[in-house]
């Protein structure tokens, strides 16, 4: 066998070999070391997220395509410099200030997804996902480390910007198991961990206590966390029924919509 030459004369179906358990879900990894993945320059992972579970924000050095095998929810992608276009209106709050604090926020765009959707995540763009449904959310994620957008080596690296992914419990599958590098993605700290606490506090203009929370040293939840009270964000109506209802209301006001 020549150095670096792919052995593709025998292919076989593959199962995930490693499971990384977290508070509100599990991530299963296919062994990237397997010749077939090596030759294709790709890797595959599957996130199974419980209801009200959130995959913590992270970014990758490879572009990623996620297929929604089951469930529904919403996701955010932070593109550098994009404005916070999802914003609760200021005046509206003024009027209601007396009625206790109304939910106010502004953030970048949020997308909805449901079973059968494909979602594209550019390399280097921080993203997060939340299971808003009542059933499990299953996301099958394809990472293309052979893509020209990846300028590192053939290993896709996931940089978490929150939480303490190393708390995930790892269980080995039947066939040997993925190379330690792959598991490492879900078994290390977030990027803030490496910065000096004071500098971090300075950079955010917050107390060192809050900066310590950024580093997440004491966080025991792993990379998929449970949000009991549900996630509140500024967002348009997501469900189809809701949208149709609003459309009908509009028609009621203006009559049937002309073709």
């Amino acid at each position, binding site marked *: 066998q020549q150095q670096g030459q792919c052995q593709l004369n025998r292919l076989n179906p593959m199962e995930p070999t490693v499971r990384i358990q977290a508070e509100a879900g599990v991530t299963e990894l296919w062994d990237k070391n397997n010749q077939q993945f090596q030759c294709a320059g790709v890797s595959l992972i599957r996130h199974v997220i419980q209801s009200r579970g*959130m995959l913590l*924000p992270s*970014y990758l*050095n490879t572009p990623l395509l996620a297929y929604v095998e089951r469930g529904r929810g919403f996701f*955010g992608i*932070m*593109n*550098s*410099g994009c404005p*916070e276009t999802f914003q609760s209106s200021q005046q509206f709050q003024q009027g209601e200030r007396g009625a206790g604090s109304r939910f106010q*926020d502004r*953030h*970048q765009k*949020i997308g909805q997804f449901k079973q059968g959707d494909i979602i594209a995540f*550019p*390399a*280097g*763009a*921080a993203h*997060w996902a*939340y299971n808003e449904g009542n059933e499990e959310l299953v996301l099958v994620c394809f990472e293309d480390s052979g893509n020209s*957008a*990846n*300028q*590192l080596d053939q290993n896709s*690296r996931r*940089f*978490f*910007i*929150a*939480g303490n992914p190393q708390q995930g419990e790892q269980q080995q599958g039947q066939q040997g198991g993925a190379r330690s590098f792959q598991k*490492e993605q879900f078994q*290390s*700290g977030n*990027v*803030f*961990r*490496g*910065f*000096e606490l*004071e*500098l*971090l*506090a*300075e*950079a*955010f*203009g*917050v107390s060192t206590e*809050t900066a310590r*929370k*950024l*580093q*997440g040293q004491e*966080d025991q939840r792993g990379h998929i*966390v449970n*949000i009991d009270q549900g*996630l*509140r*964000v500024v967002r348009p109506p997501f469900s189809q029924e809701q949208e149709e209802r609003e459309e009908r209301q509009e028609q009621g006001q203006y009559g049937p919509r002309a073709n």
Partner: protein
Amino acid sequence: GIEETICSAKLRQNIDNPARADVYNPQAGRFTTVNSLTLPILSFLRLSAAKGVLYRNSIMAPHWWTNAHSVLYVTRGEARIQIVDHRGQAVLDDRVRQGQVVIVPQNFAVVKHAENEIFEWVVFNTNDNAMINTLSGRTSAIRGLPVDVIANSYQISREEARRLKFNREETLLFTSSGRSSQYGRV
């Protein structure tokens, strides 16, 4: 109009001139980029460059280059630089001074802190339209997150989450109170 071809292509652009700054903070410094949008020939080379100036007691926001490796060459002064990999490990935590070179791999998080003197550097990027994503400041990834996502991600109150999100109005270059330089580990 004359089509720009290789023969008549513009090949040169100055990035030292303060008037060309893309990001400018009178108290903290400036940052100037040259990429294929400002110097079209770079789309053939698929490279870009930038020049940074940090005044004393200033910080460049923690950030990562989303689509490029970055080679940093110091042209003046000294600063403390920390570089963190995907495991949260600081793979570099050092004071870097004039004449030295540091390589920042794609996606690795970086922070620069000019403590006692002005710090000037040039970067060469392996993408003709290299992009920075910041972790703090007005255009940062954290700012783009919903308050609830921050509160739940870091197990903090909503109020704390708002502070994390909104306390820094600058985009890339911040003044520092100098508190952190007392704790420097290097």
